[in-house]
């Protein structure tokens, strides 16, 4: 999903992807197998087929994953730990996620919180710069023509390539990681906001002209609400990318954080913890995505068809 819009330029194809992301992908894959099950059990407890379809495929999917994992574990003579051993280790870790034994040995909870804090900072700065920039680029064709080549050039660059620049300029690991998050999450927000502004229906602008609305009313009552769904898609893509990037950035910069934790456990050859971290990273990413989708659907309204 991330890559679909990431590779798309500001042109029509990009905005199609954005539009479909707003409408079609509003329902994540998580909900379908939760809600039908509820509905089915409420309506008629004898409709086993619906329940079956709702519960069986996800369970099978997870069983397959764990089965393959177990096979790999056996075939590598447990250098990849078995699911059971990992689970036992997870119980130990989650029983005390917030301990502190010095700067390099802290609980998983602290590591996740530190990573989330970096993401929030970098992402917040990117939103503060990217969303107004997107509005300006979408509103004025001159700016759009001026910045489009720059965005096209810089957007495909791997965020990690910016890390040395960050280290050089900010002379610290932490600001460099935040800088990396900033640079990777700013593009989807600029692009989606700009596309949203360019796609404000002409009908709404005609209404504004006939009612002779002030610039302030146009921005607050027409532009902002109609751009909001696009903007939130940009925000969602940005958070997704930021969460992908923070792990890699922290592996390089060190300190406290989930990425550093993975690297540290690798140096200790504690593979169980690495696998636990993979699951944790996945679940946190899923929660972030799900929360933003919920926000986006709350602000998406039926559009006028012309």
């Amino acid at each position: 999903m991330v890559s679909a819009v990431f590779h798309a330029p500001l042109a029509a194809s990009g905005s199609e992807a954005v539009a479909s992301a707003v409408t079609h992908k509003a329902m994540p894959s998580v909900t379908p197998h939760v809600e039908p099950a509820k509905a089915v059990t409420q309506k008629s407890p004898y409709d086993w087929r619906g329940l079956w379809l709702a519960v069986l495929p996800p369970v099978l999917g997870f069983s397959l994953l764990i089965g393959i994992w177990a096979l790999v574990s056996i075939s590598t003579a447990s250098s990849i730990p078995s699911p059971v051993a990992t689970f036992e280790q997870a119980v130990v870790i989650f029983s005390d996620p917030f301990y502190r034994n010095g700067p390099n040995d802290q609980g998983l909870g602290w590591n996740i919180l530190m990573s989330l804090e970096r993401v929030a900072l970098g992402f917040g700065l990117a939103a503060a710069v990217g969303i107004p920039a997107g509005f300006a680029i979408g509103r004025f064709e001159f700016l759009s023509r001026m910045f489009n080549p720059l965005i096209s050039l810089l957007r495909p660059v791997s965020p990690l390539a910016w890390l040395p620049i960050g280290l050089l300029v900010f002379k610290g690991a932490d600001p460099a990681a935040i800088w990396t998050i900033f640079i990777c999450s700013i593009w989807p927000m600029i692009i989606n906001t700009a596309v949203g502004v360019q796609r404000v229906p002409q009908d709404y602008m005609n209404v504004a002209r006939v009612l002779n609305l002030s610039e302030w009313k146009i921005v607050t009552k027409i532009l902002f609400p109609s751009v909001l769904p696009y903007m939130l898609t940009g925000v969602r893509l940005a958070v997704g990318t930021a969460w992908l990037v923070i792990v890699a950035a922290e592996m390089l910069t060190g300190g406290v954080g989930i990425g550093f934790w993975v690297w540290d456990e690798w140096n200790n050859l504690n593979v169980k913890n690495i696998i636990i971290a993979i699951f944790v990273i996945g679940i946190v990413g899923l929660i972030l995505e799900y929360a933003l989708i919920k926000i986006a659907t709350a602000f998406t309204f039926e559009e006028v068809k012309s």
Partner: protein
Amino acid sequence: MNPNQTSKFIDIVGVEQTFKTKKGPFCALRDIHLTVAKGEFVALIGHSGCGKSTLLNLIAGLTTPTQGHLLCDNREIAGPGPDRAVVFQNHSLLPWLTCFENVYLGVERVFGAANKTTGATSENKAQLMARTDAALALVGLTPAAQKRPGEISGGMKQRVGIARALAMEPKVLLMDEPFGALDALTRAKLQDELLEIVARTHSTVVMVTHDVDEAVLLSDKIVMMTNGPAATIGEVLSVDLPRPRNRVQLADSPQYLQHRKAVIDFLYTRQVHVEKAA
């Protein structure tokens, strides 16, 4: 008010509209001369692509003519404004505002600020809200005031659009195929309501339509347009049916049928071959 001002409330003189396209200039309208009296209901009718919406947009001020000029109440139409309220074909309500807020947006703009030209002082919030409530009541939508456009039917949306336009107390009400997207029964109901509202408010209305019955039922004057490109006014028919009009009684009135036939004759006998050629 002198008679000239009442009979030529809207005065369109020698208007021509040419659009620049990639294939070169495209002449949509030429040689348009039309006057609309105060309190008159005028229907613009013609085949699609004959420039009737273009003409309406010119009166609204959303576009400016390449030649000629348009006057409204003896003043040149220089741009869009709330004195010429538009009811859009697709209702164009803002989906994130409730029906009340949609209407209030226009009311606030027109009456919420002191008006230098008319000398009116600004009204307070209670007065503005009363105006909005009154407009929604006029179209029978008081119960739906707090609903969003997505929650109401197409006919109700169009009524909100009409309420939004009427609430601004415009000099002219411009309607661009207001009922075109509605089913026949809803359309008939809204036409009846519009007849009643116009009788009560004595509004000056210019309405674009492609429905012959609608044109004859509602208007005092039917402006029939030739086919585009370079469309112009082919014929103007005065509809002198007595008001209040009732669609059931009119259905077998010989006068009504005569008018209806005149319009159909123009549209399907005299203008049809041009369309084939185009």
